[in-house]
C-alpha cells in the first residue's frame, strides 16, 4: 500500500507541474490557435493524466480528462478550430482537474462531484465536429469505456508500460469491451503502438519517456523542500558554531587553532552559499500563473492584454518567493483591471488595441528587482489628488505642493483606491497598501513611476534571502537585540555640549537636530516597556530607516555587526510588533531581532508620516518666505561678504604657485579640468592689492561655484563661517553685484549676487588682478 501512496504522490506532483504548464500553453494557444506543437503538448499532458488516473482508479478524474482529451484531439487534428469559448471550457476543465487533485492529496479520492455540466459542455464542443457526435455523447458516462478511446485511435491506458506490476488493480475499472478486444492486458501494447505510429508526433517517448526523464541522464533530482529547510537550519547552526569558534580562537594564541578555525570559516561560508543556492527558485515559477490570470481577467473586463516576461530565470529564495507571490498577483491584476484601457479607448489614444503587460526581473547588487509595467493609462494624478483629499489622507494644501511622483505614491496609502467602480477584482480599498506592507515585511521596497496616459511601472526590490542577514547588535537593559543592517542609516552619539543642544522636545515628542533636519527620537527601552533612562546626558542613537521615514532609536550600548541566522518566533509572540524573529549569538544566548517597522508603528512614527512630511515641507516653505537662508560668510579685501551656501559646491585651498594663465585668464588645474579663478574683491570693485600685500605665501582660499556645467573659483581672503541669515531687515544697496546688506552674525555683511558676477565674467574680461 505504501508503494501505492508513493505512486499517487508522484502522480500528484507531476500532474500539478504539468497543469501549471497547461495554463501557460492555453494562453499561448490563443495567440497562435493553429500551433500544432502546442496542441500536441496540451493533448499529451491531459492524456497522461487521464491514463494515470484510470490506472490508479480515479474514475471522476478519468472521465473528465477523457472528454477533454477527445475535444483536444479534434482540435489537434484540425477538425475543430480553437475559439476563445473552447479554450475557456478547457481551462475550466484544468481547474476541475486541479480541484480533484487537491481532493486526492487531502482525502485520497477524487470526490463525488461528477462535473456533469463540464463534461456536457466539452461534449457539446466535440459535437460541433459533426459526425462523431454520438460517440462522444456516450463519453459523458462517469466510467469511460476504454475501448472507445481505442476506437478513436488514441492510445488510452499507456501507463501499463510504466508500471507493469500493479496492473491487476485497475482491472475492475476497465470495462468488458477491452477484455474482448485484447484478453490479456500486456498484449494491449502492440495494439496501442499501432495508432501511435501514424500519429503526427514522436509519441514513442510520450508517457514512458516522462518516467525516464526524471531518472535518466538528467542531472537534476527532486528533493523534498522539508529536507532543504532542514539543511538550511543545520547550516545556520554551523554558522553559529563557527562564530563561537572564531570568537574563542581570537582569544587564544594558538596558531594551529587559528589556522583551523580560519579553514572552518571558509568552508562554512561556502557551504552556506551552496545550501542557499539549493533553495533558490526561478521567479518564473510564480510568473507561470500570470498568463492565465491575465487572460481570464482581460476576457472578463473586455480588454486585450498581452503579457511579456523577461528574466524568468532570475532566482530567489523559496520563502521570499512565497511571500511575494500574492502581492505580485495583486499588482498584475491591478494593472489589467485599472491600468490597461478598453480597446476602443486605446485606439482613440493612438495606442494599439492590445495592451502590454511587461514583467521583468533582474539581479542588482544583492537584491532582486522586479518590474511590472503596463502601457495603460498610468496614474491619473488629478483623480488621485481628489480622492486622497476626499479620504482625508492629505490636505488641500499638501496636495497642491505634491509632485507627480509623490501623488503616484499615494496609491500605497491604506484605504486608497482609485477604481471608480468597485469590481470584484480590485478596488476595494485593500490594495496597493497591502502589497507595500507585504513587500516591506520581507525587507523589500516598492516604488512606482507613472506617466499619465502612457502607463506605469511598479518596481519591487527584495533581498535575495532572509535566512542569514547582517545585523547590528545593540543592548538595552542588559539584553542584546539585533537590528537588520538594511534598516540602518547611521550611528550617532548625542551629547548636550556647547555646540549641540542634544535631544530637544517638540511638545512631548523628543527630536534631535541632525544636519538641520528634525529626527524623531524613540527610546527602545520605552517601546519594549523596560525601565528607561531618559535623563542620561549622552545617548547612543541608531538612525533607522522605516518606510520612507527616518527615526533615531536610543539604546544603551552599540556593539558590533554580525551575520545572524534568523529564526522565527513561536506562536506565543504573535501580535508583538516589535520583533521580527530571534537569533542565537556567538556566546549561545538568544537575542531578539527588532522589527523596525513595528517599532516605528509603536512609536507612532509611521502612521503620522504623511502629516509630518507635510509639516516639514511647510517649514521649508515658511523659511523661504521669511527670506532666511544659510550663507557662507567670508572676507574679501577686508569686507564681510556672504554667499548663499547652496551655490557653493566645495571649499578649496590652492598654493599660489598653482596659478597658471590660459587665454588671458587665471586658472588652476582642478580635478582634471581648468578652474577659472575670479577675485571676489575685484568683482566687488574693492581694491584687492593691499589685501594681498602680505599674503603672497598664503594659499588661496577658493569657493568652488558650480552652475550649468561651468565651474568658477571665487577667490576670497578668508572663510569665516556658515551661518543662518535672516533677511527680514535688510539694507538695499546700489553697488553693482551687491543687492543688499544684512546683519549676519551681529555684523553688517554684503550679500553677493553671484549670478551677476558670473555673467559679467562670461560676458567680458573681468578685472583679474594678479593674486
Amino acid at each position: 500500500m505504501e508503494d501505492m501512496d508513493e505512486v499517487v504522490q508522484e502522480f500528484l506532483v507531476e500532474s500539478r507541474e504539468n497543469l501549471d504548464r497547461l495554463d501557460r500553453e492555453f494562453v499561448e494557444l490563443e495567440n497562435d490557435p493553429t500551433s500544432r506543437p502546442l496542441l500536441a503538448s496540451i493533448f499529451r499532458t491531459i492524456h497522461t493524466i487521464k491514463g494515470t488516473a484510470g490506472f490508479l482508479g480515479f474514475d471522476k478524474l478519468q472521465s473528465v480528462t477523457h472528454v477533454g482529451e477527445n475535444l483536444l484531439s479534434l482540435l489537434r487534428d484540425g477538425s475543430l478550430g480553437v475559439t476563445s469559448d473552447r479554450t475557456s471550457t478547457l481551462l475550466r476543465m484544468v481547474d476541475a482537474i486541479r480541484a480533484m487533485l487537491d481532493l486526492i492529496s487531502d482525502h485520497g479520492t477524487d470526490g463525488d462531484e461528477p462535473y456533469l455540466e463540464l463534461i456536457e459542455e466539452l461534449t457539446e464542443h466535440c459535437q460541433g465536429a459533426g459526425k462523431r457526435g454520438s460517440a462522444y455523447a456516450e463519453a459523458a458516462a462517469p466510467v469511460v469505456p476504454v475501448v472507445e478511446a481505442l476506437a478513436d485511435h488514441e492510445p488510452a491506458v499507456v501507463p501499463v508500460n510504466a508500471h507493469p506490476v500493479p496492473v491487476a488493480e485497475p482491472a475492475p475499472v476497465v470495462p468488458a469491451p477491452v477484455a474482448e478486444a485484447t484478453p490479456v492486458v500486456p498484449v494491449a501494447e502492440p495494439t496501442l503502438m499501432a495508432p501511435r505510429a501514424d500519429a503526427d508526433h514522436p509519441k514513442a517517448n510520450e508517457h514512458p519517456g516522462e518516467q525516464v526523464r526524471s531518472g535518466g541522464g538528467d542531472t537534476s533530482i527532486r528533493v523534498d523542500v522539508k529536507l532543504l529547510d532542514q539543511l538550511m537550519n543545520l547550516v545556520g547552526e554551523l554558522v553559529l558554531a563557527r562564530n563561537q569558534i572564531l570568537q574563542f580562537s581570537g582569544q587564544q594564541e594558538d596558531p594551529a587553532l587559528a589556522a583551523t578555525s580560519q579553514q572552518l570559516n571558509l568552508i562554512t561560508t561556502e557551504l552556506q552559499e551552496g545550501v542557499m543556492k539549493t533553495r533558490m527558485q526561478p521567479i518564473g515559477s510564480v510568473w507561470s500563473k500570470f498568463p492565465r490570470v491575465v487572460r481570464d481577467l482581460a476576457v472578463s473586463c473586455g480588454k486585450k492584454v498581452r503579457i511579456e516576461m523577461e528574466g524568468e530565470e532570475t532566482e530567489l529564495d523559496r520563502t521570499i518567493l512565497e511571500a511575494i507571490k500574492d502581492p505580485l498577483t495583486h499588482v498584475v491584476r491591478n494593472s489589467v483591471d485599472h491600468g490597461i484601457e478598453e480597446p476602443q479607448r486605446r485606439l482613440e489614444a493612438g495606442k494599439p488595441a492590445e495592451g502590454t503587460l511587461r514583467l521583468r526581473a533582474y539581479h542588482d547588487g544583492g537584491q532582486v528587482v522586479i518590474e511590472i509595467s503596463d502601457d495603460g493609462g498610468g496614474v491619473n494624478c488629478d483623480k488621485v489628488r481628489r480622492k486622497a483629499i476626499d479620504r482625508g489622507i492629505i490636505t488641500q494644501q499638501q496636495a497642491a505642493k505634491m509632485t507627480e511622483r509623490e501623488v503616484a505614491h499615494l496609491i500605497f496609502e491604506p484605504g486608497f483606491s482609485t477604481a471608480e467602480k468597485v469590481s470584484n477584482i480590485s478596488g476595494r480599498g485593500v490594495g496597493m497598501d497591502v502589497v507595500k506592507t507585504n513587500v516591506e515585511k520581507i525587507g523589500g521596497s516598492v516604488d512606482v513611476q507613472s506617466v499619465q496616459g502612457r502607463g506605469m511601472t511598479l518596481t519591487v526590490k527584495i533581498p535575495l534571502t532572509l535566512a542569514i542577514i547582517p545585523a547590528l547588535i545593540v543592548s538595552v537593559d542588559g539584553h542584546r537585540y539585533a537590528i537588520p543592517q538594511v534598516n540602518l542609516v547611521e550611528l550617532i552619539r548625542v551629547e548636550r555640549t556647547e555646540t549641540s543642544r542634544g535631544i530637544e522636545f517638540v511638545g512631548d515628542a523628543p527630536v534631535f537636530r541632525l544636519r538641520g533636519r528634525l529626527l524623531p527620537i524613540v527610546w527602545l527601552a520605552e517601546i519594549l516597556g523596560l525601565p528607561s533612562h531618559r535623563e542620561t546626558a549622552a545617548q547612543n542613537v541608531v538612525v533607522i530607516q522605516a518606510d520612507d521615514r527616518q527615526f533615531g532609536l536610543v539604546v544603551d550600548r552599540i556593539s558590533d555587526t554580525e551575520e545572524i541566522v534568523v529564526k522565527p518566533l513561536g506562536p506565543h509572540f504573535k501580535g508583538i510588533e516589535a520583533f521580527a524573529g530571534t537569533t542565537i549569538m556567538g556566546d549561545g544566548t538568544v537575542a531578539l531581532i527588532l522589527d523596525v517597522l513595528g517599532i516605528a508603528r509603536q512609536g507612532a512614527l509611521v502612521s503620522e508620516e504623511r502629516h509630518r512630511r507635510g509639516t516639514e515641507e511647510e517649514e521649508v516653505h515658511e523659511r523661504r518666505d521669511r527670506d532666511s537662508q544659510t550663507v557662507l560668510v567670508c572676507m574679501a579685501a577686508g569686507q564681510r561678504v556672504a554667499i548663499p551656501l547652496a551655490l557653493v559646491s566645495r571649499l578649496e585651498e590652492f598654493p599660489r604657485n598653482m596659478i597658471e594663465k590660459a587665454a588671458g585668464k587665471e586658472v588652476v588645474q582642478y580635478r582634471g579640468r581648468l578652474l577659472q579663478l575670479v577675485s571676489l574683491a575685484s568683482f566687488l570693485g574693492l581694491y584687492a592689492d593691499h589685501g594681498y600685500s602680505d599674503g603672497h605665501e598664503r594659499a588661496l582660499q577658493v569657493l568652488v561655484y558650480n552652475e550649468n556645467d561651468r565651474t568658477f573659483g571665487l577667490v576670497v581672503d578668508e572663510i569665516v563661517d556658515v551661518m543662518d541669515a535672516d533677511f527680514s531687515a535688510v539694507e538695499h544697496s546700489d553697488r553693482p553685484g551687491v543687492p543688499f546688506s544684512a546683519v549676519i552674525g551681529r555684523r553688517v555683511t554684503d550679500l553677493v549676487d553671484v549670478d551677476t558676477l558670473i555673467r559679467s565674467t562670461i560676458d567680458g574680461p573681468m578685472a583679474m588682478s594678479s593674486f
Partner: protein
Amino acid sequence: MSTEQMYATFYVEDIFFGVNALMVQEVLRSQPMTPVPLAPPEVTGLINLRGQIVTALDMRRRLHLPDRDASKPPTNVVVYTDDGPVSLLVDEIGDVLVLNGDDMESLPETVDRVQRDLVVGVHKLDRQLMLVIDLDKTVRPTLVG
C-alpha cells in the same frame, strides 16, 4: 483490558502533576533565559536548546499560582508540540509512573476554573492525587494584550 499509560510527573507549588511521558522530549536543569519584553506573563523567555530556540512557559503563572521563590531555580520539562518544542518551567521533577489510564477520574467541579481547564483528569495514588495535564491547552498561546 487495561490501558497502561506512562506519566512524567512534576510538582508546581506542591501540586502533583503528570503529563504523557511520550510527549516529553527531555528534562533540563535551569537554563540561561532571554526574556521577551511585551510577551504574555506566562512566557518567561527563550532558551537555546542545542541551537533550537525554545519558548519557556512558567507553569505557576500558567496555573495562576503565586510566583516561585527567586532563589529556587525552576526545572525545564521540554515537551513536543505542533509548533516545535516548548519548555514548561516546574518546581521539581518527579518519577515516571506507569498507571492504568482507565483509572483516571474527572476533576471535581469545585477546582479553580483555570486549573480545571488545563487538567484532563485526576489519578488517585496511594499517598496523593496526580493531576493529568492537558498539554495542548497548556501550551496554547494566550492572547497578547
